């Protein structure tokens, strides 16, 4: 037996319904008639605007010919006779056993004067669009009433038709339904950039025709707005919302929803069991849906029911993602944060003009919804996560291009110009820069960049950035090795590797870089590989290590002779003075109690050092990731408070560890009593004298990230002290990451200071013998690099300005005089000094 099915409306949902039924009704139980108001078969209304981009009506068509359906185009149903089960058109009556209403919506036209004028349109059908195009020909101005989703689509259409376009929106922002205030203003900037003039918070009070005579009577001329202003418009599009088309159902006595729409239950059945309603015209349990996806779901439900199934409407996700005027806009879930106690996380980047908001549950664990403007690449993941646990840290999810989310990769994709901290206008670039300079945690970043110091909302993002950079710093050293520095250290040590080439061939790839080469050079040096510039090792060294001096901004170098403990004889001071004078070097006393000589050209370095070495100086290793200085106060020798000989100990320690290559520089100090004049607690290891011996402190730091060293052990004898420092340094050298100072190393250590104590004092890892032996090897094999260099003509040969003109100084290096000393003549490159004091200092 075949039953009659009549479908009213051949829109997107009606069409989907017919297809669903046809494909499943294999026994041909239903004879299908479709009665359609529009003169053309179903088309993709969602892509309607593509029509103005040149997509043809045919390309938009959803119709499948020969689907065995009796499709009656241009034949709207005017009445339904439920008693006789007839759908009535102007052409005939169609009996039904089941009637499916899929009549969609009609555009709401606000009750103002002039909506019937020529040149005033709605934006719903292909016919509307064709009429708009026709009318716009030869005209210049246009206006859209309504700044919602549809209105902006229409505005873009008018633009594409070459009209200078206005958008008038009654709400205080564009797309009020989808986005919040901040998203709306971001969107407004995009839209205005396209030369569309936006009027928000304004109603249209009337649409006015051309005043006859002269103008075209009965044709629109412009809009009067509620603020009294006048917008000239030759074309007006009304996009002020939609209303469900429930008129036929209403007239047939079917129940309708409170706010309109044909009332249906979860099976999409109306108050008449033979009549169903689907799509925008249906109010499922009282609620209408203005999107196509819920309509499709309803179509499937009714197709299933008509074939004996029991499907129900699952409820709908009102998420939307669209590209409006080239701008990605997406909203999903509870985009407006209507859930009780919910929290917002927002992100705004004015540079790339991305706005994003997440709405989270009150305990910040569940994603409820959100808004994305400018970049909606995270939309799929986010939408998928609504109602569930957050797939990652909120800000990482919001970051552009985090489509793959959940990994925190999003933050990596953020443009460098993105403002991470908007309170203090700190960009991602600035934060990443600070991390590269050594900021290793949030407090350091706060101190250094001020990010996160006001409202604190960017702190999660700072952590993300740290994590992302940390991965690179600590795990794989660089693209040439998958190992961390510690792992590479072990490989070299255990396998007895002697050259970088062997290491990279066997355990890495490529030919290395400025990250791995110096790190490997340092490891080889720590393991006692002799003179750092011999053989292949030379090519691994950073320029500082290569020329055994510190490169400066103009390409010259500075020279720092070692002055152990800061103690120096007058004769040696005089030598330094003479050398500086003879080579025209700028001199400055350093914080580490020595003297820095600046402005030496490459080819001068061996000459300078010849003089220094002959006077008994050694390299100060200011250029190396190595022990720098052991600073001291005068201690008990002179100071009336001193309880131990701090200078003597400092000299001994500095001589013991001089030249020891490490993951980063190492600084130390010794104070002669608890008054701590040497600032030992700001050092990697610091010693403070007590009445009974020495207190050892470890993990201190100065610089941009000050940290007081922690007390490691008290009242040590000199012998104990030295043993602990030996092990501390060697353990650090073995296990720290590249460029990780001792402070960060201890903080990152599992078990922290207690673990460190166990390793060093109690030998919990059974390592102490090895560590002791390694230091002993270092002490025994130490030789001064500069003496070894100047004594060997082959080595001196490297210090030439030009390989083809060894005696010609670099002509680009020039000096000027400042406060009686030479300084680089940088010309325009000199940094601008703001308000440098011209204080009346008496000379």
């Amino acid at each position, binding site marked *: 037996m075949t039953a009659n099915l009549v479908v009213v409306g051949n829109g997107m949902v009606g069409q989907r319904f017919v297809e669903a039924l046809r494909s499943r009704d294999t026994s041909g139980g239903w004879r299908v008639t479709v009665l359609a108001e529009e003169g053309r078969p179903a088309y993709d209304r969602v892509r309607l605007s593509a029509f103005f981009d040149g997509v043809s009506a045919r390309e938009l068509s959803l119709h499948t010919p020969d689907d065995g359906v009796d499709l009656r185009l241009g034949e709207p149903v005017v009445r339904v006779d439920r008693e006789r089960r007839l759908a009535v058109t102007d052409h005939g009556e169609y009996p039904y056993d089941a009637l499916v209403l899929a009549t969609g919506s009609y555009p709401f036209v606000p009750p103002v004067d002039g909506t019937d004028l020529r040149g005033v349109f709605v934006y719903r059908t292909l016919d509307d669009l064709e009429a708009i195009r026709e009318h716009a020909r030869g005209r210049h101005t246009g206006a859209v009433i309504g700044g919602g989703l549809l209105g902006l689509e229409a505005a873009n259409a008018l633009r594409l038709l070459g009209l200078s376009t206005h958008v008038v929106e009654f709400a205080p922002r564009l797309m009020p339904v989808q986005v919040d205030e901040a998203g709306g203003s971001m969107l407004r900037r995009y839209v205005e950039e396209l030369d569309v003039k936006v009027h928000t918070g304004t109603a249209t009070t009337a649409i006015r025709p051309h005043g006859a005579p002269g103008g075209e009577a009965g044709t629109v001329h412009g809009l009067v707005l509620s603020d009294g202003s006048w917008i000239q418009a030759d074309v007006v599009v009304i996009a002020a919302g939609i209303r469900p088309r429930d008129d036929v159902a209403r007239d047939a006595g079917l129940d309708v929803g409170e706010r309109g729409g044909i009332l249906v239950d979860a099976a999409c059945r109306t108050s008449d069991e033979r009549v169903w309603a689907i799509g925008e015209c249906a109010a499922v349990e009282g609620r209408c849906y203005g999107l196509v996806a819920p309509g499709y779901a309803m179509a499937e439900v009714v197709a299933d029911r008509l074939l004996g199934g029991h499907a129900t409407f699952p409820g709908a996700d009102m998420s939307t993602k669209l590209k409006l005027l080239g701008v990605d806009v997406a909203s999903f879930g509870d985009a407006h944060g209507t859930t009780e106690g919910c929290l917002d996380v927002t992100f705004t980047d004015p540079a790339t003009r991305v706005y994003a908001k997440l709405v989270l549950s009150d305990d910040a664990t569940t994603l409820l919804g959100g808004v994305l403007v400018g970049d909606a690449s995270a939309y799929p993941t986010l939408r998928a996560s609504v109602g569930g646990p957050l797939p990652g840290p909120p800000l990482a999810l919001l970051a552009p291009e985090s489509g793959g989310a959940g990994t925190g990769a999003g933050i990596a994709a953020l443009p460098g110009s993105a403002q991470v901290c908007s309170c203090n206008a700190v960009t991602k670039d600035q934060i990443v820069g600070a991390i590269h300079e050594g900021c290793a945690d949030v407090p350091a970043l706060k101190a250094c960049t001020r990010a996160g110091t006001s409202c604190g909302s960017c702190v999660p993002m700072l952590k993300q950035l740290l994590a992302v950079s940390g991965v690179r710093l600590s795990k794989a050293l660089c693209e040439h090795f998958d190992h961390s520095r510690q792992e590479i250290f072990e490989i070299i040590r255990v396998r007895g590797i002697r050259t970088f080439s062997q290491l990279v061939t066997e355990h890495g790839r490529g030919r*290395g870089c400025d990250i791995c080469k110096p790190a490997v050079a340092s490891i080889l040096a720590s393991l006692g590989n002799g003179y750092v510039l011999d053989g292949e090792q030379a090519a691994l060294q950073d320029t500082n290590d290569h020329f055994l001096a510190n490169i400066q901004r*103009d390409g010259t170098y500075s020279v720092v002779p070692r002055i152990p403990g800061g103690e120096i004889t007058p004769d040696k001071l005089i030598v330094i003075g003479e050398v500086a004078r003879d080579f025209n070097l700028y001199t400055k006393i350093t914080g580490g109690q020595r003297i820095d000589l600046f402005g030496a050209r490459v080819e001068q370095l061996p000459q300078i050092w010849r003089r220094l070495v002959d006077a008994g100086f050694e390299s100060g290793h200011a250029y190396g990731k190595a022990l720098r200085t052991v600073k001291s106060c005068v201690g008990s020798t002179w100071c009336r408070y001193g309880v131990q000989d701090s200078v003597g100990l400092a000299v001994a320690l500095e001589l013991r560890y001089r030249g020891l290559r490490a993951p980063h520089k190492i600084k130390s100090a010794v104070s002669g009593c608890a008054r701590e004049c040497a600032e030992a607690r700001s050092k990697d290891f610091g010693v403070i004298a007590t009445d009974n011996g020495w207190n050892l402190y470890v993990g201190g730091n100065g610089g941009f990230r000050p940290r007081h060293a922690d007390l490691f052990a008290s009242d040590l004898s000199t012998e104990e002290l030295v043993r602990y420092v030996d092990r501390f340094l060697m353990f650090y050298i073995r296990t720290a990451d590249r460029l990780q100072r001792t402070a960060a190393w201890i903080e990152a250590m599992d078990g922290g200071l207690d673990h460190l104590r166990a390793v060093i004092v109690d030998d919990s890892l059974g390592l102490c013998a090895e560590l002791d032996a390694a230091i002993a090897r270092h002490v025994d094999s130490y030789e001064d690099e500069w003496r070894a260099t100047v004594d060997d003509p082959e080595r001196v040969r490297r210090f030439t300005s*030009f390989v083809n003109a060894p005696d010609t100084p670099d002509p680009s290096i020039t000096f000027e005089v400042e406060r009686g000393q030479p300084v680089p003549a940088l010309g325009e490159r000199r940094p601008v000094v703001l308000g440098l004091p011209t204080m009346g200092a008496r000379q």
Partner: protein
Amino acid sequence: MTDTLTERWEVICPQELVEPERGVAALVAGSQVAIFRTYDGGLFAIDNRDPIAGANVMSRGIVGSRGDAPTVASPLHKEVYDLRTGECLDVAGVAVRTFPVRVRDGMVEVGAR
């Protein structure tokens, strides 16, 4: 290299003075040129001036590789340059000039265009 386009070659130094994975600076017709030898023996010559810092230091950078590209890193701020093209791989739009370079009779020669 682009031998055919080069009119004049300037003899710089014996080839062993350019050690593997190191650079040397040379004065060529008043310009400073940095000459490098890569591990596989390739010779490259670029402008010795670090275009970002403005100092003539490129010859003192660390030679290595990034992906397939032979590279040198500026010793001042570590921006990495492709030795073949002079292009800066870290800062878009920045590049150093490259020069033709070859070995003739055991001597390194740089083309002065």
